């Protein structure tokens, strides 16, 4: 039926193959004979196509880190940026975001974060850990892979800051934006794929630096790993450089600067150039507006992605055995050492090094049970629950010894400060 009128139609159709589209959709056809309303359709050359590139600034309506990461991923996978470059602006409620190859237990104080309702998220791009809150602006620059340029993007930001507030900022050799006194106001990371690429960065506008410090404070937790380790650096807010800098104005001024910049030469083309672009758009990142978004969000929010994706590591802690657990004639300086091997977020093996007296002491029989009950468990509070259950089922008159072991294990896993070892 459909074939009939396509074949029967008066106008001949030509096939133009569209390559690189990630969506598995039918090829688009177009005819040159009937009225074509696209102004660049008459030009077929690559240069002309490039010349017709327009820009949009998308502003996310969501403040949920997982939704925004999912939106970023959705655009990266599904959008065709050939003639349309996009800058996505987003802000999140308090969250710590680790890089793709990082270890969340190493980079952040996981127990403290969950107490304060601060999320931990893992992004798709590499690099180090950052702290987000509503005073932080995230920018993602989307282009086709061959037109990716971090430098251009960062220069654009510096120009916007200069134009609006006269702020002088520089790009450091590590491609971070720094203020005059070399304090970092922005962190940067990227993902290059085919056919799309993105460069995203943060801008500290009015972040709560106290919370940032607490959230990212690293403790000596005895973790050994090949994961990417963050390089801490002193940071500063834009509002400290100039008290007039406000988030709303910053959004607008970076957006306008992006729109007036040539997508390829990165030159400032002036205000008239803006009229040729698509301008600002709010984006409501829900599954109904972007089918498939919910699935991506669920993945970003899953324990398996956030924690499970950590490269293999082991954590070693030693604990002083409390005096009450030792008999009178033992030395008081006895230590229990625990090493846990974790792979894909799951406990692979546990090694307990128990002081001989504790091991031989009547009632302490839990060593084997500790290991077997923890193996295969997620490296989380759930493992502790399993352990407690396993130990409590043992017939042991000295429950305090088992409780001590459980306490040590919990400390290991939740990386709490051990008060006694302070």
């Amino acid at each position, binding site marked *: *039926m459909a074939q009939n*009128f396509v074949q029967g139609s008066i106008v001949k159709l030509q096939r133009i193959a569209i390559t690189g589209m990630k969506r598995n959709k039918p090829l688009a*056809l177009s005819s040159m004979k009937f009225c074509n309303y696209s102004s660049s359709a008459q030009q077929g050359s690559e240069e002309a196509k490039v010349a017709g590139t327009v820009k949009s600034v998308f502003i996310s*309506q969501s403040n949920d880190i997982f939704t925004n990461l999912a939106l970023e991923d959705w655009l990266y996978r599904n959008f065709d940026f050939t003639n*349309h470059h996009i800058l996505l602006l987003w802000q999140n409620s308090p969250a710590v975001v680790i890089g793709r190859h990082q270890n969340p237990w190493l980079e952040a104080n996981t127990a403290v974060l969950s107490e304060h309702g601060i999320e931990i998220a893992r992004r798709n791009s590499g690099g180090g850990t950052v702290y987000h809150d509503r005073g932080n602006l995230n920018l993602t620059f989307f282009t086709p892979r061959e037109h990716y340029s971090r430098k251009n993007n960062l220069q654009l930001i510096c120009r916007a800051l200069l134009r609006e507030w006269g702020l002088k900022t520089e790009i450091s050799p590590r491609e971070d934006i720094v203020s005059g006194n070399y304090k970092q106001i922005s962190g940067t990371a990227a993902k290059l794929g085919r056919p799309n690429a993105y460069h995203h960065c943060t801008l500290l506008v009015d972040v709560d630096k106290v919370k940032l410090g607490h959230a990212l404070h690293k403790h000596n937790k005895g973790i050994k790993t090949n994961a990417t380790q963050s390089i801490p650096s002193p940071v500063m807010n834009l509002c400290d450089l100039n008290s007039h800098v406000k988030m709303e104005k910053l*959004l607008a001024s970076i957006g306008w600067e992006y729109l007036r910049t040539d997508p390829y030469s990165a030159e400032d083309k002036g205000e008239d150039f*803006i009229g040729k672009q698509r*301008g600002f*758009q709010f984006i409501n990142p829900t599954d*109904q507006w972007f089918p498939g978004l919910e699935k991506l969000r669920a993945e970003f929010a899953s324990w398996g992605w956030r924690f499970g994706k950590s490269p293999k590591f082991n954590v070693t802690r030693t604990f002083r055995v409390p005096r009450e657990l030792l008999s009178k004639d033992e030395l008081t300086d006895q230590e229990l050492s625990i090493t846990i091997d974790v792979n894909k977020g799951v406990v692979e093996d546990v090694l307990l090094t128990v002081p001989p007296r504790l091991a031989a002491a009547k009632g302490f029989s839990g060593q084997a049970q500790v290991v077997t009950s923890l193996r295969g468990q997620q490296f989380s509070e759930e493992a502790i629950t399993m352990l407690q259950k396993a130990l409590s089922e043992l017939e042991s008159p000295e429950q305090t010894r088992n409780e001590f072991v459980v306490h040590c294990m919990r400390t290991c896993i939740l990386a709490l400060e051990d008060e006694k070892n302070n």
Partner: protein
Amino acid sequence: MVTLTRLARVLLRRKFLCRHVATYKVKPALSFSNEVQNTFKFADLSVHLASPEQLQQKPEVTALQFGKHFTDHMLKILYHESLGGWQRPEILPFENIVLHPAAKVLHYATELFEGMKAYRGVDGKIRIFRPEKNMERMNQSALRAGLPTFDGENFIKCLCQLLSIEQEWVPHSESSSLYIRPTLIGIDPSLGVAQCASALLYTILCPVGSYFSGTGEAAVSLLADPRFTRSWPGGCGDKKMGSNYAPTIHVQQEALGQGLQQVLWLYSDDHLITEVGTMNIFMFCINDSGERELITPPLDGLILPGITRASILELSREWNEFRVSERSIPMSEVVHLLSENRLLELFGAGTACVVSPVASISYRGETLHIPTERHKYPIYAKFRQTLTDIQYGRVSHPWAVPIDT
């Protein structure tokens, strides 16, 4: 005595008249002739993009009710005879319109509009469906309403630019579209029933999600009451003018009050069926010769020349699977065919829902049950599938043109 050049005289006259014109940003026409410009040009389009604080938040798709939400920008083109006619088209942030209290549209309904849609295809591109036909119809309406005409192609290009800017208002899910409402109003600030010397052509857009309530995939029940007439010979029922619609609201309320959904508009003592609600009507039956026939009322001045209607007729003629006729249909024929089980389907056709099957008609105190939905392969469903396949790019066709993306 000073002898002014022709140019100087024109400029002086224009300068004098300018003082009385509303303070829009208008640049004077480039040509130095006194002749009225008969169209505006896409090449003169200026774009003022909204800044973030002027943007509207996007609601949930399921919350998108038809006609209740609008996008961030609009297209505006002014016409002032005193300034040489059509001015430069503008795309600017969505704003209210300020009118002089004597503006003709407010008194004599010198107004016309169009209804069309932009569809997000399966390949993600935005397409518009046969826009040139809307432009033809709009210009016909303008002539009748005493409003200025314009070149449709230039308007479509400006519209495509607007759609391009607003395309994130169309959800990325399938079956999502943007409803386009071009409107032309007479804004002459003077009472007096006369040709408009000033007019405003503007276009606003409404996002339409795939699940918005009101599309009615279910068949509708109709009220056919010969007391009410929508159009008459010599009238303007065949023009898409606002003045045709206001009088129908009361009748629609009557239908709703009787528990029915739409009005079947009848004309003359023969109770000819003309239109249903705001759609054209089609009847599919087995005629006296025993062959299947698709019939719709002719464009004799009573009927709005719908673009969906035209598309259905063209498709039918191309398929050549049944007879196609454009002729009047009296209610008596409907009743007669129904009694002989030869009435197969009755359905409305329009932009909003493509086709709308009719389940029943309340006529002269009786309810006529129409078996539209009781067939295995109803023709109205085939039309809907074919047209939506074209609109959403599942099938490539010259009727649906991608805008510049």
